């Protein structure tokens, strides 16, 4: 049995099965809180803890899947390229808005991390929490955070954006459709963008444009701010 558990096939099968269950559940109830990634994560962690199978055994197969994070990030250039033409009229406000958002997110984490004494590792893990997972997990690793904590924080952030974005925009009187899209994409990456697309075409386009740019800004700015502190 050990030979099976320590073969790459085990981790790959477990991941596929858990993600399929997560996808089915999330499609059946169609609720934003039922995120397939979170469901699959809970299922696998629960399974490993119950059976006593180690994380190392799971990762023999899991690492094969994680290698694909690199091409998965590279192709994010395609939605960015498709939306670049929609930048034309308001490119200055949009770029400045995304930069403001990225800095706001970083500043919140740094300030409250210090205030609540979260500790260096945890603060660094939360720093890239507003950007898309393939970028956030590598930025986290680069600045000395724990990628798995970052991934969970990013998912919670995305769900928050998807659930609360329309209400926040209304409450804060953010009425311009371009500003709404930029706000949602910058703060809550692809998960928020799925909601932005439901609000309107302009919001969806602006939100998906903001994902890649916010990720790029954060990847550049976060290490600089950390080294300056």
């Amino acid at each position, binding site marked *: 049995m050990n030979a099976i558990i320590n073969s790459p096939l085990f981790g790959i099968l477990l*991941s596929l099965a858990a993600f399929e269950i997560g996808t089915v559940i999330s499609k059946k109830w169609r609720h934003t809180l039922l995120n*397939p990634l979170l469901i699959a994560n809970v299922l696998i962690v629960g399974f490993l803890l119950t059976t006593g199978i180690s994380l190392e055994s799971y990762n023999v197969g899991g690492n094969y899947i994680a290698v694909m994070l690199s091409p998965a990030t590279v192709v994010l250039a395609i939605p960015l390229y498709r939306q670049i033409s929609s930048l034309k009229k308001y490119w200055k406000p949009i770029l400045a*808005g995304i930069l403001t958002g990225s800095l706001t997110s970083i500043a*919140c984490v740094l300030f409250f991390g210090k205030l609540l004494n979260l500790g260096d590792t945890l603060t660094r893990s939360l720093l890239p*929490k507003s950007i898309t997972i393939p970028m956030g997990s590598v930025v986290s690793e680069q600045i000395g955070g724990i990628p798995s904590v970052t991934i969970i924080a990013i998912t919670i952030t995305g769900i928050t954006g998807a659930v609360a974005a329309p209400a926040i925009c209304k409450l804060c009187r953010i009425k311009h459709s371009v500003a709404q899209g930029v706000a949602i994409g*910058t*703060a809550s990456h692809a998960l928020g963008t799925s909601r932005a697309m439901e609000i309107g075409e302009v919001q969806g386009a602006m939100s998906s444009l903001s994902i890649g740019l916010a990720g790029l800004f954060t990847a550049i700015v976060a290490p600089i701010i950390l080294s300056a502190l």
Partner: protein
Amino acid sequence: MRIFRQLTIIFAICVAGEILHRIVGIPLPGNIIGMVLLLILLCTKLVKPQQIAEVSNFFLSHLAFFFLPPSIAIMAVGDDILGRWPLLLFLCISFTLVTIAFTGWATQFLIRRQERRESRGSEP
């Protein structure tokens, strides 16, 4: 279709990104450099979106699956961090709301300013 050509293009960009990061020493993660490289190739029309359509659509529509294995490492994180999850959950949610508000305000303010200037500029 040409799946192998599409995969070759995308993985070559991945490797180029890693080379620029590890050997040339650009202080950005290799995969993010790769994304910028592909964006440049698309803007300069050296690569057309349809040349990598199937492979990129596959990755873009199943993105979340590839994060599952790295996310499982959460079980190896110490109790000092896991024990504070209610605080972390609260922080993640409130930071997100603040970020949406600030980003939206800044963008909307700058758009309105630009619109005011343009309408003033167009008057005789």
